């Protein structure tokens, strides 16, 4: 599929100009008329609730600013938000309610792959377009009217390891040996298996491969096996707290890994752990330049920090989750503005043929699963902060990759 320059620029103006204005700076008049209802669920309770709160705060910021800027099509926007309790079955029921009972005009997805899949099935049944936040397994995105806001390409199992290994190969200490240790949680497991293949193609010698069940509590023996293998580089498929648990276990046996990467760690707890210094992960956005050179992003980072502090959230910086969430709203706004209406099929068709400028970068939706480019960058914990270090054009000012 090709996208001509004129269409691209139209998309940029639809998304960029609208989103750029925040507060009253470029207010387009007070919206009036029947509100446009955007319906969605979030994990406000249950195991995903910590991240659900990030999406809630982000959505509130976006909708408030959108209404200050004149809403959508001159009408106010109302976000109908329900709690899916982190459960896919509850998400399915609630999306049915949103469509049939609340009669929402537009759908925005929940957070977490399982819940998004549930919502996607309902959206497909009713022919609704759905834009969702952080969907982890692109090959499962079969519905042609679903649009991912988190862009890591259709084949992250190849592209994400390639980005990381490219970076390490260009470092002062290119690794020769690798350990791949991974949770069997689906979103991280297939990428870890891909990392094994990419590492093999790059000539890295695999000295250890381990898998554990998600929910594992005892990381002591796993840390012990890593210590004995003593690889130059550890690829860790660790979801949420698992990264911290493994680091903690390695610290207890006095082992400091030389170069260590974590796929989907809990960014807040990890950055606060002293033993995590040097830890690597991927990101689509961090709260520092050049990401915040975009005034929309800068304003969002500032507002998010204030709201997150007020909500007693321990981590108040914007990173992947908040940026993907913000991008989802930007995608919806761009599609509605460009199609001048709320027709689901028209919006879907427009999105597949155009690009949308978001705070994570320019998104396109014309590859498998409506994914586009892999916008993952690599970040590293340095002196208690996450700093982007790769590619160099996205590195935080003065930050360079530290290896040993």
């Amino acid at each position, binding site marked *: 599929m090709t996208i001509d320059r004129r269409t691209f620029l139209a998309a940029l103006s639809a998304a960029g100009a609208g989103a750029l204005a925040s507060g009253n700076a470029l207010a387009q008049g007070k919206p009036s008329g029947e509100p446009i209802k955007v319906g969605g669920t979030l994990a406000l*309770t*249950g*195991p995903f*609730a*910590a991240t*659900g*709160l990030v999406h809630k705060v982000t959505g509130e910021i976006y909708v408030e600013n959108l209404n200050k800027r004149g809403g959508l099509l001159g009408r106010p926007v109302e976000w109908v938000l329900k709690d899916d309790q*982190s459960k896919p079955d509850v998400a399915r029921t609630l999306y049915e309610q949103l469509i049939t009972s609340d009669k929402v005009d537009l759908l925005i997805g929940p957070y977490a792959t399982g819940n998004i899949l549930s919502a996607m099935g309902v959206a497909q049944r009713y022919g609704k377009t759905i834009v969702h936040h952080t969907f982890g397994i692109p090959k499962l995105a079969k519905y042609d009217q679903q649009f991912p806001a988190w862009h890591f390409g259709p084949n992250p199992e190849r592209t994400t390891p390639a980005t990381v290994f490219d970076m390490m190969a260009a470092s002062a200490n290119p690794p020769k040996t690798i350990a791949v240790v991974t949770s*069997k949680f689906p979103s991280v497991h297939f990428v870890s298996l891909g990392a094994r293949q990419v590492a093999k193609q790059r000539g890295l010698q*695999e*000295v*250890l*491969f*381990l*898998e*554990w*069940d998600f*929910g*594992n*509590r*005892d990381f*002591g*023996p*796993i840390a*012990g*096996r890593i*210590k*004995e*293998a003593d690889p130059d580089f550890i690829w860790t498929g660790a979801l*949420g*707290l698992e990264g*911290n*648990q493994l680091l903690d*276990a390695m610290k*207890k*046996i*006095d082992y400091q890994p030389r170069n260590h990467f974590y796929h989907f760690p*809990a960014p*807040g*707890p990890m950055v*606060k*752990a002293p033993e995590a210094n040097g830890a690597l992960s991927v990101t689509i956005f961090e709260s520092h330049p050049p990401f915040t050179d975009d005034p929309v992003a800068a304003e969002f980072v500032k507002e998010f920090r204030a709201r997150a502090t007020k*909500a*007693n*959230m*321990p*981590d108040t910086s914007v990173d992947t989750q908040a940026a993907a969430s913000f991008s989802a709203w930007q995608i919806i706004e761009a599609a509605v503005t460009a199609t001048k209406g709320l027709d689901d099929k028209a919006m879907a068709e427009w999105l597949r043929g155009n690009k949308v400028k978001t705070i994570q970068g320019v998104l396109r939706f014309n590859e498998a699963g409506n994914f586009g480019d892999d916008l993952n960058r690599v970040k590293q914990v340095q002196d208690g902060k996450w700093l982007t270090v790769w590619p160099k054009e996205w590195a935080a000012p003065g930050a360079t990759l530290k290896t040993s």
Partner: protein
Amino acid sequence: MADRMAQRMGRPGRNTQNLLTRQPMTLPSFTLLAQSIVAGIFTGALYGLLGLGLSLSWGMLRQINLAHFALAFLGAYLTYQLASYGGVDPLLTLLMIVPVFFVLGVAMHWMLARFRATPFNSLLITFGLTIIIEAMLQWIWTADYRRLDSSYAEHKLRLGPLFLPLPELITLGLSVGISLVIWLALRRTDLGKAMRAAAEDAPIAAAFGINHQALALMLSGLSAALAGIAGVCIALGHTLAPSQIYSWIGVVFACVMLGGLGRPMGPLIAGCIIGVSEAVTMAVTAPSWAPLVSFSLLIAVLLARPGRA
């Protein structure tokens, strides 16, 4: 791979292939094996401490108290709060947590006794309580992860090539000490004998002048206090999130069943067996096999000794 690693470490190695996971089954070094056993004992000690109160209330009060896990996490969060924001030493929080939780336990038993809850009904009621406590934890502390930064986490003992972290040593000490004291108290003191008699046959015990209702309140208070103590240990060594309440239930229930209901040393011994078997499994083969080992062990014991629970 294991041969090469073993040669690098100056000892013979041997490889076999695990056909299901296609992960190499490695003969671990002495250090790895010993450290894994130590880690398993530490983990088992916490299982034992968590299971102790549950076992007592289930075996002696006929109440399957699922809220025990929620109370443990409430204790952990209170420890986090008092230590992080009140500047209290985490171990000193026990002075506050133990009496408060004792009262909570008494109140809980009073409620269950008031409604004459059967064991199955007690399971449902305490499950409801667990949900309420989880919601309360999330409301107060949010669903975000919380980690207690204490000086204890920075200390560890070294025993040759083995490392013994202080928080785990404290947990082990508390678990062994408390289990022993309760075991002795139940066997050697009049109060303990009265509790056992009341658990065996309350009407007959009452005929001998034992106030079984007061003893039941006391035992329930003790169980809740034990949950609070386990909570302090959880706070010392683990990152907290409200939903993690549920991640302990399966394995701790297995410890209680294996150890025998109402037997104070049972959960500790069973916990250590499960902890060590899981840890050694993880050291030798795929870590994802560890839960299979512990639950297979439970099924085998229940098949061999069906009257255990």
